[in-house]
């Protein structure tokens, strides 16, 4: 039984079949321990809400019923996961991580990236076999994560999975 920390971009792979979705789905279907940051609730719910109320194109809008179905599925998934609370320690340490990443030519671009990485790194201090799952192949986040952990601790669900 392995432990995985799902960053928000890994979560969204679960809800639409695309490259990497099968791997993410297997994490949920298997006997693994899945962690997530409480702030991911905010990010994922916002995406789902946007599909309902602020779609990119009119023909891609979802109905209220479909919106509720997506929310319901998401709630079921996080019910079975371990929620990591973004703590004051993480607020303090996030700047240390930002600094170290920057010194190693890895800029953590967004605040949510920083929050997710910080939460993972601190969770990993408590669970040293914890993998980081992030779907953003080209991201600054992955590059920054590699400053702190081995490449083998980072999983990018793509078509290779």
């Amino acid at each position, binding site marked *: 039984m392995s432990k995985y920390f799902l960053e928000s971009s890994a979560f969204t*792979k679960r809800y639409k079949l695309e490259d990497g979705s099968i791997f993410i789905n297997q994490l949920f279907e298997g006997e693994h321990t899945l962690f997530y940051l409480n702030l991911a609730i905010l990010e994922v719910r916002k995406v789902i809400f946007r599909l309902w109320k602020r779609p990119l194109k009119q023909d891609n809008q979802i109905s209220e019923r479909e919106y509720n179905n997506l929310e319901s599925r998401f709630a079921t998934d996080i019910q079975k996961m371990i929620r990591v*609370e973004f703590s004051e320690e993480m607020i303090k340490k996030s700047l240390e991580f930002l600094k170290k990443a920057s010194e190693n030519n890895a800029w953590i671009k967004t605040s*949510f990236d920083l929050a997710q990485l910080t939460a993972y790194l601190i969770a990993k201090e408590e669970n040293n076999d914890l993998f980081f799952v992030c779907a953003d192949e080209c991201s600054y986040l992955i590059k920054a994560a590699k400053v702190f952990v081995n490449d083998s601790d980072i999983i990018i669900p793509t078509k290779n999975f």
Partner: protein
Amino acid sequence: METAAIQSGHPLVEEKSSTKDNYVKVYNLTFVDKWYFYFPPNLVNPLYQYEYKEVVQLPLRLTNPLYGREELDEWINDKAKNAPSIEKIWEITARLPSLTKMLLEDRNNE
């Protein structure tokens, strides 16, 4: 009450807090420009004179990061009832753009 360590020599602002009911009282520990006389006559150095002045009362709602956790868990448990299968979700999202791409675009446009 918990008292923060007082740094001597400089009139720094320190805080201490106490809890009563559902509030946290926040105090500023400020330098007071007073001279005190005691018997035997002894002029007390004002640099070490501080007093606590109540600044604001904050509800735990604003200070406890876990405030509302029960309500959030209740929402999750409620929403999770009668959840559709993941296959049903994939049917819904089949016609939609990549959710991951949307999330990352939103995030990168912070």
